[in-house]
Each structure stands twice: as structure tokens, then as C-alpha cells.
């Protein structure tokens, strides 16, 4: 008769020790207690000091100031804003401006970065050297230096509105900023947008269908003629049936300034140019590393399978390179967003400048305002890195490592 299997010895205490103190055991636990006590003590000191100092300097505390009237103007706002609006409105204006700079900067930085990164690997010696020189010179100068250079030296040296540089008499570049025709929505706008949306959705559906067919039955469906027909045809049809979606208000020079048109403030131009060229240099290095990480054999294997050069690039090289490029690329996007806070140096009304700059100096509530500002940037970073770690997890899962 088989004897009953012995129960394993009680792991309770060992487990508890591990949970409370890690490998260091009870010593680690004691260390933790001391650590927390020290932190609590520091926290208490900070809290007590802050309260005493705020009382001594007669600074209000709490978030009540958010509903007070701001009373200062903002040079660029995506949403209606006037001086009688509250500080919370100012916060929103600044946040939207930050996001605007970030999005526009990211688009340009990506385009320039990919061009330069591919250029550095070009078989053409001169192109590779020029791209390398660009990366080295831009990366080794401080970003603030570049922002100030573009803003003070380059844009400051532009002529006044009367002598502005014009392109087709529709775009005007002067020291008052870039003035471009302003699109005005017409009656056909809604129909037009709806047509575009339908075309895009239909194209995506078509692509999904083609992929399914490819993977299930091995049928190759060429979809790009249909997609182009959809994307071009449907909106064109909408324009023909419902009339033009937008008309443009051409800026006119009146007196010493422009009337009409859309004015892009010079601060925005300088910030976007500096941020995107600076970040592009880093993106170029990431792109180069990504492409170089794909082994030469992959290209040769694709060719030996009978794929064309384009198909090899599209189906074999780019997906593998993107896996390497994407995480540092997101990091660069984050850096660009964080660096957009340097707008405060040239007075572009981004989140940091209007909130931690003007609002802070008006209300004096440093703790609340800096905490909110830091919180916003922190939130953006944490959400992005959460998405990235999810992406990395999926990649690792699909590779089975």
C-alpha cells in the first residue's frame, strides 16, 4: 500500500519574509520601515514648511483660482478666448496650443527624419555626407539655442509686412508671421466631409477583405485602383453635386498689416522649425539604426523567393526595421512634446508659458500650478509609455520569445 505523499513544509513564514523584505529578508523589512519613516518625516516637514511659508507670504492655496478671471490676452488660441475668461480656460488654450505644436512638429520631424536617415545610408557619397553633416551639426547644438536662433536671428531679420516675401500673392512671410489664405466652410462642406469619411472607411474595409482573401485562399486582389477611385471619386462627386466645400479668404495688405487670411504667429513658426529640425536629427539616427539592424540576408532571401525589389522592401525589410525604429521613435515624439515647453523662452502661448509662466506670476500659487503642469506632461508620457509597453508585449508575444 502506497504511503501518503508528505505535505511540503509550511512555506508561510518564508513567503511572508519574501513579500515583506524581498531577498534581504527581515533586514529588508526593517530597512523598509525606516525608509518609509524617513519619507514620512520629510513629507511632514515639507508640508509644514509649505503651510507656514504660504501663510507668511499671504498666498492663497487650493484650486479656487481656476475659476477666477484671467485678465490677460493670448496671442494664439484654437478656441474662442477673451481676457474675461477664467484661468481654467487659459489652461485649456495652452494645452491645445501645446498639442498643436507637438502634432505639427511631429509630422515635420518624421518626414525630415526619415529623409535624412535614409539619406545617410544612400549609396551616393555626397548625399550621405550631407545627411551626416546635418545630423552632427543639429544634434550638437542646444535646442534652446536653435529656437532663439530661428526666432531672433532668422525670423527677426525678415522684412516688415509691406516688403513681405510673397508666394503667388497668396502666402506672405514677414516679421509678423506667415499669412496664408484662410479656408471658410461653405454649404457643401458637410457633404464633402461625409464623402471623404465614406471613402476612407470603404477603402479600409476593402483592404481588410483583401488581406482575408490572401491569408485564407491565397488570392491576391489588387485594390489600389479601387482605393484611388474611391478617395478621389467620391469627394469629387460630392463637390460636383453640392458645390465647393471651402472658399479661401485671400489676405490683403492694408496699411501696415494684413487683413483677412490666417496669420500664423512667428513664435509658432520658429518653434515648429526648431523642434522639427532638432528632433529630425535624432529620428534620422533611429531610422538608420533600424534599417541597418535588418540583415542583408533578408533582402537576398526575399529576392530568391522571387519577390520584386519593392515587394521585398515593403513586405520584408520595412516591417522588421519598423519593429526596431518604433520604440525610440515614440520616445522622440515624447521628447518633442516635452521640449515644446521651451516656447516660454520666445513667448509662444503653450501650456507652460501661459500657465506656469503668466498665471503663476499673476496668482503666485506655485505649488498648485507647477503640480498641474507637471501632471499634464507626466500623464502624456505615462500614457504613451503604457501604449509602447503594450506594443512591445505584443511584438514579443508574436515572435514567441
Amino acid at each position, binding site marked *: 500500500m502506497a504511503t501518503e505523499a508528505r505535505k511540503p513544509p509550511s512555506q508561510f513564514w518564508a513567503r511572508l519574509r519574501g513579500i515583506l523584505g*524581498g531577498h534581504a529578508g527581515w533586514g529588508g523589512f526593517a530597512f523598509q520601515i525606516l525608509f518609509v519613516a524617513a519619507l514620512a518625516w520629510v513629507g511632514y516637514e515639507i508640508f509644514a514648511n509649505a503651510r507656514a511659508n504660504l501663510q507668511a507670504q499671504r498666498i492663497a492655496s487650493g484650486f479656487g483660482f481656476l475659476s477666477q478671471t484671467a485678465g490677460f490676452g493670448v496671442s494664439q488660441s484654437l478656441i474662442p478666448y477673451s481676457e474675461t475668461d477664467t484661468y481654467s480656460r487659459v489652461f485649456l488654450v495652452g494645452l491645445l496650443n501645446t498639442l498643436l505644436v507637438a502634432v505639427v512638429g511631429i509630422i515635420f520631424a518624421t518626414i525630415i527624419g526619415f529623409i535624412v536617415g535614409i539619406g545617410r545610408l544612400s549609396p551616393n557619397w555626397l548625399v550621405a555626407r*550631407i545627411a551626416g553633416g546635418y545630423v552632427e551639426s543639429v544634434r550638437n547644438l542646444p535646442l*534652446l539655442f536653435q529656437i532663439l536662433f530661428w526666432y531672433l536671428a532668422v525670423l527677426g531679420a525678415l522684412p516688415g509686412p509691406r516688403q513681405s516675401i510673397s508666394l503667388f500673392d497668396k502666402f506672405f512671410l514677414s516679421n509678423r508671421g506667415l499669412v496664408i489664405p484662410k479656408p471658410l466652410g461653405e454649404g457643401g462642406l458637410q457633404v464633402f466631409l461625409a464623402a471623404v469619411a465614406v471613402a476612407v472607411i470603404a477603402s479600409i474595409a476593402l483592404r481588410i477583405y483583401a488581406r482575408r482573401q490572401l491569408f485564407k485562399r491565397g488570392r491576391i486582389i489588387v485594390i489600389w485602383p479601387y482605393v484611388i477611385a474611391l478617395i478621389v471619386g467620391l469627394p469629387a462627386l460630392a463637390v460636383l453635386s453640392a458645390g465647393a466645400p471651402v472658399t479661401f479668404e485671400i489676405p490683403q495688405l492694408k496699411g501696415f498689416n494684413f487683413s483677412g487670411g490666417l496669420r500664423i504667429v512667428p513664435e509658432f513658426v520658429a518653434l515648429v522649425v526648431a523642434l522639427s529640425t532638432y528632433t529630425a536629427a535624432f529620428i534620422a539616427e533611429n531610422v538608420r539604426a533600424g534599417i541597418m539592424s535588418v540583415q542583408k540576408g533578408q533582402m537576398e532571401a526575399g529576392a530568391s523567393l522571387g519577390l520584386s525589389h519593392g515587394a521585398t522592401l515593403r513586405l520584408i525589410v520595412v516591417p522588421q526595421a519598423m519593429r526596431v525604429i518604433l520604440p525610440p521613435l515614440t520616445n522622440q515624439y515624447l521628447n518633442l512634446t516635452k521640449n515644446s515647453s521651451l516656447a516660454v*523662452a520666445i513667448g509662444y502661448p503653450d501650456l507652460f508659458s501661459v500657465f506656469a509662466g503668466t498665471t503663476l506670476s499673476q496668482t503666485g500659487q*506655485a505649488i498648485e500650478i507647477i503640480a498641474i503642469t507637471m501632471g499634464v506632461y507626466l500623464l502624456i508620457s*505615462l500614457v504613451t*509609455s503604457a501604449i509602447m509597453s503594450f506594443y512591445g508585449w505584443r511584438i514579443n508575444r508574436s515572435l514567441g520569445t
Partner: protein
Amino acid sequence: MTSSSEPFVRQELAPERRAPASTTGIIGFARTRLFNSPGNALLTIVGVLLLWWIIVPMLHFLLFDAVWQGSDRNACLAQNAGHPVGACWPFVQAKLSQFIYGFYPEPERWRVNLTFALAAILLLPLLIPRAPAKVTNAALLFVAFPFVAFFLLYGGGLRGFAVGWSADVLSNLIGSIGDAGAKLTSLGLGQQLPVAALLLKWLGDGIVIASTVALYLVFPLAWLQRQSLASGQPVWADLAVTALLVSLAVFFLSGGFRNGWRPLFTSLAIFAGIGIIIAVMGLDRGGLPVVDSRLWGGLLVTLVVSVTGIVASMPVGVALALGRRSSIPLVRIFSVAFIEFWRGVPLITVLFFATYMLPLFLPGNFTVDGLLRVLIGIALFAGAYNAEVIRGGLQAVPRGQSEAAQALGLSHAKTTGLIVMPQALRHVIPGLVNSFIALFKDTSLVSIVALFDLLGSLRASFADPVWATPTTLFTGFAFTGIIYFVFCFAMSRYSLFVERRLNVHRRS
């Protein structure tokens, strides 16, 4: 039939083929690397045009059309110079001292020069791999030099030494802990719940009693401090007592009479060195005249901020990296939160935090110098970034290394300090240099919080109407740009050099 059975032998020479296109020499190079296809030829032409448009105006601006001599803006105006004017170098000459020293008083500038020279003398042998005595050199540069530099640049003297300071700090700390205990006790008295009241009272009383006991333990130190103050030469008496105490402790801790002699001599030599520095700089007699940090500026501030940031961020980074890999849960959570917090916010918010929030967190009678506040912020910020770099290095050290060390019977601290950390740091030298380059560039941000670093001085110099010409701005940017570029480019090249040297065994 005969002809088919005979082997074919060629009678006449085959016609000469044309030599293949040369792939060497300038022509061959141009053919293979520049004009090998129509697309590439087009790219080459575009590239040449681009370079032409960039380099020629640049040379004209910097050299050919530049004005080299003059005393004010008139020299740099096109109508006076008689040709289109490029860079206005007299502007840089006039503002050079401001770009380098800021408003540092003229008669005291030798101190700044001496500091720069000392740093260069200590730094160069450290960068040359073959130079001897790396450890001593590094210790001098990273430990001794910062103190010397502080007393050189800021000035002032000492009123005591380690015994006095530790007596002061400890008694203040213990007093503050005792206060907290007393507060807890009084909080307990106001509680409604009897259990909570009792717990709080016990906790408070316990802390008060512990702090009282600690005060008695510190008493000998306080007594020594009073004695050295009474001796008339407080610095020297304190230094002697400290040297004696520390050297004895080192002697007995490292093996006593059996093998403690060498550490004893090292310790005494270090204290003798400290004594010599104190004597030479006259720190016991008040030292050099104090130059307030508000007068500092230009390259001086840029270098002070970046070097201090680099030196101070290293221990922070090592501690955070170890904390993040620690198995003690709360330490790990704290390190992760700390690192992610600093890495998630822009540096400029950190500088604002240091400038506007930090003074609120400190006791009201305790004011911190503006430069020091910024330095604290930058050290924490750079520390968080360094921590991630160092963590990468720690992960690259194979597990077997620490397991082998444990099998040899080394403690956790010795395993980390002697086996794992040196290998990890070797791995991450290039990464660290990169983060130092980033830090060096980021120091330009201090100009936003009203410190006049190189960029801040440049911006301030633009406001001078004496030099207001159309090309002043470009000249200033060109000059500062070259300085920044030289520093960053040198660092990045050095990092590449080290990387290649470290990877010698891996190169195929």
C-alpha cells in the same frame, strides 16, 4: 571528320577588350559613388548646389565680409565698411569677458581661470587611457576638485570641520525628530478614539525618548566641538580630531595591527592633503573674498552647472538604478516612481519647481542660493536619466557573475560594489557620455530662470544699443554656436573612441 576530332587550338590572339571602368581614383570614385545612375547624378547635382548655397554665404559671412576691428556699431555698418558686412567680430571681442565670466568682478577673474586650468589638468590624464593612476586621478577630480572649486569660485572660509558639522547636523536632526514626536503625542491627546489616542501617545513618547537618548549619544561630539572652538584655532583643532577619529576607525575596521597600516597611512595622507589645501587657500583665515553667485555668468555658469550636474547625478543615478533592481518592495516602488516622474516631465518644469516651489518647502529662515536650487533640480533630473542608463548596464552583466561572487562568500554589498557595478559602468560609458552631452546642452535652459549662462549672456548682450547692427545677432549666434558645438562634438567623438576601445575584443 578529321577536323572534328582534332582539339581546337586558337591560332591568333583574341582582340583586346576595353579595360573595365576604373573604380579607383577620383574619377572612379565619382563614377561609382556619385554618378552611377541618373537618379544619383541628379541627387549629386542637387547636393552640390545645396552645399554651394550654404557654404559660400557662410564663408563670406564668417571670414571674407567680416569686420575684424572696431570699437562700436559704426564699424559694422555697411555704409561705413564700404562692402556688405558679414560677422561683426569686434562685438564678440567687446563682449568676450561677459560671455566667459558674466559679471564676475574683474580683479577676481584669475580665480575662474585657475579653476578652469585645474579642471583641465585633472581631466586630461583621465581621458587618456594610458595615463597612470586612474583611481587617484578620478578621486581628485570628482571628490577633491569640487570642494576646491567651490572655495575658489565662491570664496569664503571654514569655521569648523567634520566633527563640528556632524555635531550641528545631528543635534538639529534629533531635535526635529523629537519635535515631531511631541507633536504626535499632542495629536494623540486630541483624538476621540481611545485606541488611536493611546497608539499615537505611545508612538510619540517613544520617538521623544529615542531622540533624548540619541542626544546623549551625540554629546561627546558636541563636547569636542566646544573644545575645538575654545582652542582658538577651531578649524585646525577640529581637523586634527577628525583625522584622528576617522583614521583610527579606518585602522581598526580594516584589520587593526595585522593589515590596517596601509589604510591608516592613506587616511592620514588624505587628511594631510586637506590640511595643505586649507592652509594654501587660507580657509581657516576666512579664505578668498566671497563672490555672490548672482554675479557669475557666461561659460562659467554653463560649465559649473553641467559639471556639477554630471558629478552629482552619478551617485543619484547609481542609487536609483540599484533601488530599481532591489528586491525590497517599497524601495523598488519608490525608485520606479521617482525615475518615471523625473523622466516624464520637461526639464523646464523641474527648473521652475526648483526656483519657485523648493523655497516654499524649506523652513522660512533657510534660504538657498538661486544657483544651488537649480543645481539640485538638475542633479535629480539627470540622476533619473542616468539611472536608466546604468540599469541597462546592470542588466547586461551576466547573472553568473553575481552568483559566482555569492558562491565565493561575498556579501550583497561587496558583490555589487566589487563585481557587478564595475562591469556595468564599463558597459555604459558611451551611454553616460551621451546623457552628459544632453545635460550640457540642457544647461542652456537655466537662462529661462534668470541665470546668465552662455546663452543667457548672449541674449543679454543683444540688448546693448552700442552694438546694435543688422548682423550682431548672427555674429553672436555664430560665436556661441561654435563654442557649444566644440564641446558637444568633442564629447561625442570621445564617447565613440571609448566605445571602440571597449569593444576591441568583440570586433570581428
